[in-house]
């Protein structure tokens, strides 16, 4: 890579290390693993940078996140004890409730927040990643579709299923007596 390319790389890709780290951290659940994923991803990005045609900062972010995501999944596959999304999301079980129930949930209740945090952590990775990309990083459906390599329609249905699952957890929390 010549010095001009390196300069362009540092300007277009490196500003998105926070976004990269956020995605890696929520996919791996581990500080050190997340750092390794980001570093590996950055090195892969250097290697493939000549093929990157984007111009804007947003292009650089989506491109880097694509590589981070792929790196995270390969890292998780090779990790001996951790499996990603081994749990199959059981739609039959989860889609019935939630939408129909009265969504009066006290978001200020500690119980609610704890349950939401746990539910987010336990979402299967393909749901968790769309939540991270959409709710935290504010990416468009199209960008998420590019990053996760699934059609826009699938992105939207995953998002709504993820939200529904969270809703169900919260409604359940609301029905439990306060300890």
């Amino acid at each position, binding site marked *: 890579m010549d010095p001009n390319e390196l300069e362009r790389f540092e300007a277009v890709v490196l500003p998105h290390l926070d976004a990269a780290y956020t995605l890696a951290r929520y996919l791996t659940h581990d500080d050190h693993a997340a750092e390794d994923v980001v*570093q590996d991803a950055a090195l892969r990005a*250097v*290697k493939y940078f000549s093929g990157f045609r984007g111009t804007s900062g947003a292009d650089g972010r989506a491109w880097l996140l694509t590589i981070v995501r792929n790196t995270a999944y390969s890292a998780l596959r090779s990790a001996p004890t951790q499996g990603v999304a081994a749990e199959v999301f059981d739609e039959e079980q989860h889609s019935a409730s939630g939408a129909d129930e009265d969504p009066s949930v006290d978001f200020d209740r500690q119980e609610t927040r704890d349950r*939401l945090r746990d539910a987010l952590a336990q979402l299967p990775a393909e749901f968790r990643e769309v939540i991270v990309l959409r*709710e935290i990083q504010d990416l468009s459906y199209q960008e998420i579709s590019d990053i996760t390599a699934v059609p826009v329609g699938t992105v939207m249905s995953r998002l709504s299923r993820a939200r529904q699952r969270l809703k169900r957890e919260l409604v359940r929390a609301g029905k439990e007596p306060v300890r």
Partner: protein
Amino acid sequence: MTDSQFDVRLRGAIREQMPALAAPDTLRQRVRAAVRDAASESRRPRFMTARVKRWLALAASLAVVTSGGWWLGVSRATATALADQVLASHVRSLMPGHLTDVLSSDQHTVKPWFNGKIDYSPPVPDFAGQGFPLIGGRLDYVGGRPVAALVYGRRQHIINVFLWPVSAGSRAGEGGGSASRSRQGYHELHWTSGDYTYWVASDLALPELEQFAELVRRG
């Protein structure tokens, strides 16, 4: 609460429970160094490994530019050779995966880690309160002996502190001496105090590095 109100509140709660994170400064530093490393490797011919070539280049440039004489109490040649080794070790430590053997900001983890690896137990102060957090420690090889290297951070910058006991024979000669030099964008500070010889290397601006050295001197 209507469904759409609920969605808005859910969204807010998700953001609160799953906040955007900031990449740690040490990670930024690592990535930046690794990227530059990889970028320069990719345009070198492959008949020697990139790392060997870099070592040869570094050694050659040091051999040409070495000069010295600020080093009090030690012979010029010895001091220059040591300074070169310290610089080389510092540069090598910045290459991916070489910075620390024990990664901990806890001085009570880093200090005992050296037990059984070297024949002294180096003082390991933490200056996080002064803006120089301890990052970890490493075993290095300088001046013909294994030595303790302590790693500190300052924003994006890495500081290496090499220290080893002053040998009984040379103590009179080395005592109290201090010196500095700058090479290839890195600064090195050297002094002996108490029972230890210190070498500090970093790309940090010299005034800040001297501020750090003063903290180390006071322990």
